[in-house]
């Protein structure tokens, strides 16, 4: 399907000339995705409400808090990746410095008694990220493309190493612990319960996302797109691409810092992991899986990555392997990410012929399921042999205990993988033929462009 992503997903196009007053219905139609997201974030915790014990599920709240802050982090990453075409391998330093800033500020508030409300902590993180962006960005944005990626990687490694040396600020291996309950709140909320923190995070996630969205509509945001498309031409329309990259980097630092501040409020401990390459890789994974071409892509990607990290990891120690496979599959077959996959269907939906894809989809879903099941079974058998068995775990599949020593299970997994893959190749070409025919039709009717 990748061949059809020849243009970025149309983010809601701005009105060429601003309408002075917008009727409520137009506002709804244009911004429904935002409202849907807000409602979902507010309502979801109540689906995990334990009535017997009279409180929310702690796991669900932490998971959703992590999703909210990772969504902000991934969106800030996309300010570089999607908007300016800058691939960064060190984005976590901005996140981490934001988190450390908040940890130290909270501790300082505790010690000095200066009444700064907890609600403003993500902003403190943002300022930390901004300052870090000014310093790191000054070096990194001197270059673009590969050189930029290499410099960000170097700075990331440098700061991670420094974190283990400079104990006073970074706290070494143990990190910096803090306490978010400072008794100073604008709304008189103590923030003793995770749900209270979650709602604060929702508010900040929405604020940060709206600001980042609006930034795409400013002269700087558009010129960042221009440097991504054709950096040389931007010079001949009067812009210095380096200055554009630098500003964009600083602003991305501000929003990554906000995400870091949110992180500190949730966990109340900040270690050097927050600066490290793995954290940067998470932002990259989320952005790629969700799709860098549309504004909401990274949000979808953050939900998937956090879901794998926190949800799937409960069931299998091979979750990172599955995340890697998903990432490779997305890069190979759907470079537009999840959002791109959805967007690819729009021209077909506009023709009113989405139903014609039902059969092809049904036909590829069976072999896909078979191949995936075989693959997962195989991976789980291997991890059980190497890790699980030594931990004394029992091997079970869908609640059914299975003897991992029996040859038949291994053979079954390999056969399922092989048959599923061969079958998928056949059905895949059938699917592509149907798909291409529909897209050709859409092109002929002028729906594509």
């Amino acid at each position, binding site marked *: 399907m990748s061949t059809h992503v020849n243009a970025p997903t149309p983010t809601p196009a701005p009105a060429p000339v601003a309408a002075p007053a917008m009727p409520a219905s137009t506002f709804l139609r244009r911004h429904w995705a935002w409202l849907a997201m807000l409602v979902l974030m507010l309502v979801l915790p109540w689906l995990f409400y334990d009535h017997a014990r009279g409180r929310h599920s702690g796991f669900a709240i932490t998971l959703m808090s992590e999703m909210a802050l990772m969504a902000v982090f991934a969106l800030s990453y996309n300010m570089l990746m999607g908007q300016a075409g800058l691939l960064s391998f060190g984005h976590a330093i901005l996140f981490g410095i934001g988190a450390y800033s908040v940890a130290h500020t909270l501790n300082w508030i505790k010690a000095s008694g200066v009444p700064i409300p907890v609600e403003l902590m993500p902003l403190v993180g943002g300022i930390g990220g901004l300052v870090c962006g000014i310093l790191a960005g000054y070096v990194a944005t001197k270059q673009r493309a590969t050189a930029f990626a290499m410099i960000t990687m170097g700075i990331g490694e440098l700061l991670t190493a420094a974190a283990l040396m400079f104990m006073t600020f970074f706290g070494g291996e143990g990190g910096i612990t803090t306490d978010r309950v400072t008794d100073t709140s604008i709304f008189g909320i103590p923030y003793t319960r995770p749900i209270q923190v979650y709602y604060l995070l929702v508010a900040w996630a929405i604020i940060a996302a709206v600001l980042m969205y609006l930034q795409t509509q400013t002269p700087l945001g558009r010129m960042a797109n221009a440097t991504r498309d054709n950096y040389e031409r931007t010079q001949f329309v*009067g812009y210095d691409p380096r200055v554009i990259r630098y500003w964009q980097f600083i602003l991305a630092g501000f929003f990554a810092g906000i995400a870091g501040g949110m992180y500190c409020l949730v966990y109340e401990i900040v270690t050097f992991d927050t600066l490290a390459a793995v954290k940067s890789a998470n932002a990259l994974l989320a952005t790629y899986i969700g799709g860098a071409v549309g504004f909401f892509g990274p949000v979808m990607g953050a939900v998937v990555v956090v879901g794998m990290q926190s949800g799937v990891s409960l069931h299998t120690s091979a979750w990172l392997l599955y995340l890697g496979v998903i990432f490779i599959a997305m890069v190979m077959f759907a470079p537009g990410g999840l959002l791109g996959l959805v967007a690819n269907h729009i021209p077909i939906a506009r023709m009113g012929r989405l139903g014609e894809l039902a059969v092809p989809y049904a036909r590829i879903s069976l072999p896909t399921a078979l191949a995936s099941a075989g693959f997962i079974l195989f991976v789980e058998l291997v991890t059980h042999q190497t890790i699980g068995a030594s931990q004394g775990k029992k091997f079970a599949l869908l609640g059914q205990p299975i003897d991992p020593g029996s040859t038949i299970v291994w053979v079954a997994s390999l056969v399922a993988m092989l048959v599923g893959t061969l079958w998928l190749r056949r059905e895949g070409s059938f699917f592509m033929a149907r798909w291409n025919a529909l897209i050709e039709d859409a092109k002929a009717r002028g729906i594509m462009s």
Partner: protein
Amino acid sequence: MIEAAIQLTDVRKSFGRTEIIRGVNLTIPKGQRHAIIGPNGAGKTTLFNLISGRFPVSSGSITLNGQNTAGLAPQQINHLGLSRSFQITSIFPRMTVFENIRCGLLWSRGHKYSFWSLLGMQRSLNEEAEQLLERLNLHNRRHVYAGLLSYAEQRALEIGITIAGGADVILLDEPTAGMSHSETDYAQQMIRTVSEGKTLIMVEHDMSVVFSLADVITVLVYGEVIASDAPANIRSNRAVQQAYLGEEAA
């Protein structure tokens, strides 16, 4: 004496050991439509790259509106009032046609690196972009991604981005290359109107365009100016006939 828009004094440019531009002296007064012609490899595009700051000169000097441009970056030369187009189309393919034009307008309308003003609210800026699209005949394509336009449409957009900023010195590098007859006629007409009251310098292979638009024609052969004169005199110039025009002009 009319003030010079562009003045080149003994300009030379070498790539490695090869000297591409070999001591060019040229004065282009303000308000003139000036064409540079010459056989392939004469250094026409290189000359454009030197004037617009894409490459530094090896020696000699270039002044733009009386100011020496040595050591200035392309964007700084643009701020002095020069804008150029490219022989190989250079647009922003993953942005819409409308946004391409608006990018060309932004700097000259003082928006700079602003991240606090919303473009949707800039009524006069957007209206200006719309008007320019109409003049370019691209109005009904304004929401299409520039990379999806036909070749001729991309060439028109290329000219549009170049003239959007309202620079008073415009360099067009083969604006009609690859266009059909009717497209060339339309482009020629458009170039005539947009360059009204401005200094236009163009490299062009279509002789009918050159002879009908240019006030003065400069002939460049192997990095040297062999003639620079009014079209009628260029037509009858013997050296030019031998070096370049050949049968066509005889």
